[in-house]
């Protein structure tokens, strides 16, 4: 009897796939349908298993490829429909509705991880909105653009969008828009390490939210203030803001927001050395995440934080298990960024054990950055961590080369905070 053919490794499958934009969904599909071979769990390469070493069955891919193509068709169909709707609205003289249709098309692109395409839709919407007497549609578009730029690591552009949105919202007495703009500006400041600026923006947003009795916004702002306090090492005030955030959000049943708050609570507790409390907070965060609309990205990040906590406490088994769960969630939902972060964590874990084969996680992360995620900031983070891994193993030349690469990328992004950190690490390697 002929024995069945073995499945194909993801790394082999990807090598056969040309790097064409139109094939990106297929690339993601290959990852999401992949699974580890049954015997891999206990084989000696099991601990080093990355997505590239998982297997795909061509027959399964054939079946699922048709589904994926259908989804792509649906997506493109929805974009076409949004465009036609915008055109019809314009014909009827309803330019505000046209802006809304274009903005929604952009949001749809953003949801599927197509940031640049989303930006094109938003910018078209903005150009149309600028000519309107009613400025609210423009505020909405600017807020969407600001959030997108922030996600893509374009802090300066994000800040400009939010500033303009704030100015318009205040002129229009659009309270919700003004609060959202303050939140966005605070986020940009937080992301670039401008703590004073971040505090000022969040506080301004908080005053507006309290004045309008917007509990959800107050909860979000308390959460942001807690995040800021945590970053600056003020853990006691962080805890107090988190308590207030929970008071605002829990009665509203805002499950995802609660999950985020508890995730930060876990980080604060971990910072205070309250391990059991941190574990409990992360577990409750997962439970809230479960109750809300499925947000796999949020689940993955909570699991990564939990893994980080176990790692810091030297509980390597638990750390590995939780990181693997995060990896699984990331693969199943096509969350490349989170997948990369799982591999960085696993790589760091191996570095701690002085296990040289841990380099496979960084190599996989680099490959994912090159082929799927294409985020320079994330790539820089990967090189930085790879450099630190090599430092731990005593390979100074390699460590220096990777850290230099990280520095170059952070510099090109204008991320001074990270550039400074990498410089210090380079000095330590050279010392």
């Amino acid at each position, binding site marked *: 009897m002929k024995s069945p053919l073995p499945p194909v490794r993801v790394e082999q499958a990807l090598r056969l796939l040309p790097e064409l934009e139109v094939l990106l969904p297929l690339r993601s599909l290959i990852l999401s349908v992949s699974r580890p071979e049954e015997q891999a769990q206990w084989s000696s*390469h*099991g601990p080093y298993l990355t997505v590239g070493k998982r297997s795909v069955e061509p027959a399964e891919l054939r079946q699922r490829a048709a589904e994926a193509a259908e989804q792509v068709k649906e997506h493109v169909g929805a974009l076409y429909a949004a465009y036609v709707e915008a055109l019809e609205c314009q014909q009827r003289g309803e330019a505000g509705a046209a802006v809304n249709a274009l903005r929604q098309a952009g949001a749809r692109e953003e949801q599927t991880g197509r940031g640049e395409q989303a930006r094109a839709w938003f910018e078209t919407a903005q150009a149309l909105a600028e000519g309107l007497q009613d400025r609210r549609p423009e505020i909405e578009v600017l807020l969407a653009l600001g959030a997108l730029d922030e996600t893509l690591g374009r802090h300066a552009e994000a800040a400009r969008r939010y500033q303009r949105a704030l100015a318009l919202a205040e002129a229009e007495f659009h309270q919700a828009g003004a609060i959202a703009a303050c939140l966005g500006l605070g986020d940009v400041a937080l992301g670039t390490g401008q703590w004073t600026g971040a505090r000022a923006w969040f506080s301004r947003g908080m005053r507006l939210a309290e004045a309008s009795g917007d509990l959800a916004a107050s909860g979000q702002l308390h959460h942001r203030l807690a995040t800021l306090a945590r970053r600056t090492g003020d853990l006691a005030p962080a805890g107090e803001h988190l308590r207030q955030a929970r008071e605002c959000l829990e009665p509203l049943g805002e499950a995802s927001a*609660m999950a985020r708050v508890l995730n930060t609570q876990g980080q604060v507790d971990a910072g205070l050395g309250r391990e059991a409390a941190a574990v409990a907070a992360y577990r409750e965060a997962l*439970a809230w995440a479960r109750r809300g609309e499925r947000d796999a990205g949020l689940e993955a990040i909570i699991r990564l934080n939990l893994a980080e906590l176990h790692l810091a406490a030297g509980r390597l088994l638990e750390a590995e298990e939780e990181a693997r769960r995060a990896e699984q969630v990331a693969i199943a939902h096509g969350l490349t960024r989170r997948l990369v972060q799982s591999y960085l964590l696993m790589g760091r874990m191996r570095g701690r054990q002085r296990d040289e084969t841990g380099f496979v996680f960084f190599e996989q992360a680099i490959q994912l950055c090159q082929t799927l995620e294409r985020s320079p900031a994330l790539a820089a983070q990967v090189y930085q961590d790879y450099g630190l891994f090599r430092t731990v193993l005593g390979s100074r030349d390699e460590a220096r080369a990777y850290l230099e690469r990280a520095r170059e990328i952070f510099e090109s992004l204008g991320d001074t905070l990270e550039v400074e950190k990498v410089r210090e690490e380079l000095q330590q390697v050279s010392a």
Partner: protein
Amino acid sequence: MTRPASDASAGGSPAAAVGAPRVLVVVAESGILHSVRQWAPELEARIEFAPDLPHAARQLSQGGWDAVVCALGDRPEDDLAWWVDAVRGVPGTPRLIAFVERPSMGLAIRAEQLGVPDLLPLPMRRDDLANALKRARTVESEAPMPLPEVGAVPDGQYALVGRSPEMLEVYKLIARVAPSTATVLIQGESGTGKEVVARAIHEQGPKATGPFVAVNCAAIPENLLESELFGHEKGAFTGAVTRKPGRFELARAGTLFLDEIADMSLALQAKILRAVQEREIERVGGTETLPVEVRLIAATNRDLKEAIAQNRFREDLYYRLAVVPIRLPRLADRGDDLLLLTAYFARQFAERYRKAIRSISDRALELLRSHPWVGNVRELRNVVERAVIVATGATIQAEHLPDELRAAEATLPEAGTRGLLTLAEVEARHIARVLAHTNGQIGAAAEILGIHRNTLTRKMKEYGL
């Protein structure tokens, strides 16, 4: 119409107050809540309530729980996975008892895989809940058995432990082959200890003073494996930031252990063949020829003969590597080595985690013995490590074992009379276990159970699987 349940507790009878198991019942449906409140005195348990998963997570984090009772919703498989995740890591590892509308076969299989032995049908019946809670208490009757002495074995991660006839044969082969520099091919299932044997051969051989360099061919990305083995010159390819010696060079005057050799591409197999035949290599991007001065030991968990037949492995390389073949036995075939290995790992991890583990309970040992050990010694090592970490006293008990093993508890004979299963319950659970093992394939399950597939289908229908 449903309303959220309150956190109020139902104390039960006075007898239930002290020493009775503490149970968290998580329900939002007022009907169930009302029923459980009414049954509380007869359940001999301290019962508390939570309305949903987030509140339950908060309450569970306080610890001290013996069991959690939950009702699965519209997506029961997904729900079950979340509940298992929520209960895992809770201090004391409470037992999960899940109720669901019409448990499907898929769900029963998933429950087995997740280690949830108590998957019960809704509407909730008092007797079902009472029996499940009784089963949760059986751990009380576990008897400790001292761990045996393992004898003198080398310290560290790489000791060979075992006295079974199968292992004695392996020891003889190692003793015979070690003094030479012959190439050795070690074959065996995952986790049987191929690297341990390779190290033993190295340490007892003429190159013992040299390095032992292990390369896991299946772990390293295919495009990097060549440079890992042979090294590279600076700039040989993108990412070659410095000149780097390969593992062949690093293992000079020692042993190079190529693990999972079958996972190498044919192109790389040709290069390995050249290195073995010519005894020389070149770094990637280099022109200098370097001598190969290593003893080569290869290992695989695959059937290389089959790989050759499928044109996935070079026949000439196989014969070059399999000068001395050694086949390692499965843990399931090693009889009482299981107990020796358990004792060895328990002592090793007890020392690492500063615990005073001296015994294992009869029930825990029974669970270890009834497990199929597809991951062999590596899986056992992992299980014992986890048990040592979670154990609080001097004895490893059933509750310290992972869910997958504890799921088999339901089919073990009961130590006491409390929580005994009916014959039908045992049969239903066993069928679910076998189906979980065959991933739901009825034909394969019927074959294992030794019954006709029509009989199995009928029984599955009867038991609501």
